[in-house]
């Protein structure tokens, strides 16, 4: 009996993974129909109770405003992911450094970033980062709130990308290092030309998962009154008279919005994961 019996590939099941056996567009479509139906039903119920614009009509009026907010969610997610990727790779490379003084602190930072709740990191950055920084040439770099929140979102993802890189490099068999050494590669050359290219395939699915997770976290920006989808929806409900009948359609609409965007990414990620699993 192989020693691999009775084991699961742990990472596949963490919250950070969108692993599921039969992720399928039909499931997504079915869910969306269910969402829409319940939205319509809730609005119909609301309409029966109240006079003047039905909840659904109200939602339609405010839809462009909410969508505009959602665009900001997306912008934040793109930027934060870009920052997290660049810094995360840097931190990850530091984690596999042979120099203890580089490795130890970068390990510590990675652990800290991975183990704190996102909300706490958000508070730290939003409240402790100054509004602007004065550069030596008497130039001022402004930090509007949405830039700050982008930086805050980048941090936990950065920690996790750093860890993905370390895990991927460690999963390359030592024989690869040895054969590179045999060909007179230096460590950095081996890393650059032999090890890292092999890591990329392994790292892409988890990287995509982190993007999805990051996007799913962007609504937290509404806590800091950034005008993204959730705060815009709440503002819309407020402006439309804060009727309880509005709550279900508005929140369901928000859920749908994110679902429509994230679900295809999850399906695609799963596909890549399978493909690479077969390939290796």
């Amino acid at each position, binding site marked *: 009996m192989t020693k691999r019996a009775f*084991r699961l590939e*742990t990472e596949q099941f963490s919250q950070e993974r969108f692993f599921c056996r039969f992720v399928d567009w039909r499931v997504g479509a079915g*869910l969306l129909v269910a969402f829409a139906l319940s939205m319509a039903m809730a609005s119909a119920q609301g309409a029966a109770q109240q006079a003047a614009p039905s909840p659904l009509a109200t939602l339609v009026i405010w839809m462009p405003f909410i969508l505009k907010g959602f665009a900001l969610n997306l912008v934040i997610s793109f930027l934060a992911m870009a920052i997290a990727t660049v810094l995360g790779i840097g931190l990850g490379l530091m984690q596999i450094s042979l120099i203890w003084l580089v490795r130890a602190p970068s390990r510590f930072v990675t652990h800290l970033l991975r183990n*704190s709740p996102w909300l706490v990191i958000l508070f730290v950055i939003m409240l402790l980062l100054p509004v602007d920084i004065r550069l030596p040439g008497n130039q001022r770099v402004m930090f509007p709130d949405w830039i700050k929140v982008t930086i805050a979102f980048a941090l936990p993802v950065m920690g996790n990308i750093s860890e993905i890189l370390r895990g991927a490099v460690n999963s390359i068999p030592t024989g690869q290092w040895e054969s590179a050494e045999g060909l007179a590669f230096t460590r950095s050359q081996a890393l650059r030309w032999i090890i890292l290219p092999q890591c990329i395939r392994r790292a892409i699915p988890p990287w995509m998962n982190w993007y999805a997770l990051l996007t799913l976290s962007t609504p937290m920006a509404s806590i800091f009154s950034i005008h993204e989808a959730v705060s815009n929806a709440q503002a819309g409900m407020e402006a439309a008279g804060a009727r309880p009948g509005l709550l279900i359609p508005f929140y*369901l609409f928000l859920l749908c919005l994110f679902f429509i965007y994230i679900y295809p990414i999850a399906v695609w990620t799963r596909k890549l994961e399978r493909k690479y699993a077969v390939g290796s």
Partner: protein
Amino acid sequence: MFELIAPFFRHLYERTGLNFIVFYDPHEFGRFVAGISISLQLIFWSLLLSLVIGVVGAWTQRSQSAIWRGCVHAYIQAFRNTPPMIQLLFFYFALGAFTPSVDMGGYTQPIISSFVWAVISFGIFGGAFNVEIFRAGLDAVPESTLEAAESLCFSRWQTYTNVTLPLAFRISLPALTNNLVSLAKTTSLAYVIAVPEMTYVLNQVWSDNINVPEMMLLLFLYYVLVVTLLATALHALERRLVLPGYGQ
């Protein structure tokens, strides 16, 4: 306890201006302790609910009925692919608006408090991941081992309780640890529906006393501690239950 640390932190404040007010002001200390208590309860009940949902869901996913399996699958997809914060808002505001309130003599109070809504929401969110984890654990128990039990006269139920479940649980445990730790971190989101847990309480403290950096540090330490303790406990359980000879 409080009497013991209070003089030191009061002194610290007077000397250096570092204002850890929750450690020397009795009122703020009370708030702080209540915050810890609520936060730990929130974590405990959310994890518990997510485990129950995970077990029941995994069981349903292996059932014969395609309809039930489809329902569980849709549930998993719906809750994995939408933001947990909006789920929480949806439960608390949208569904909460339609749950009845009880008259508490003078004022009314909803039957389901924000704390309970948070537990429900996090439990359902975390459960979506646990279902998959448990199902994979059950699937990973080799058919041949079950057959061996059958050939030794084990009934279906005896096989289930003596072989399938103990093995599936052990197989699932590492993945489960990850997910539970993640979920514990996610509970800080209860802040958005004003559950007076740690994040919320320290927020109030720092707005009342303008000591943001100190309280922030405390918040950070609190979560790092809780997460580390939870992870350590679960890893210890993992080590105790590891299948000898099949470990790392």
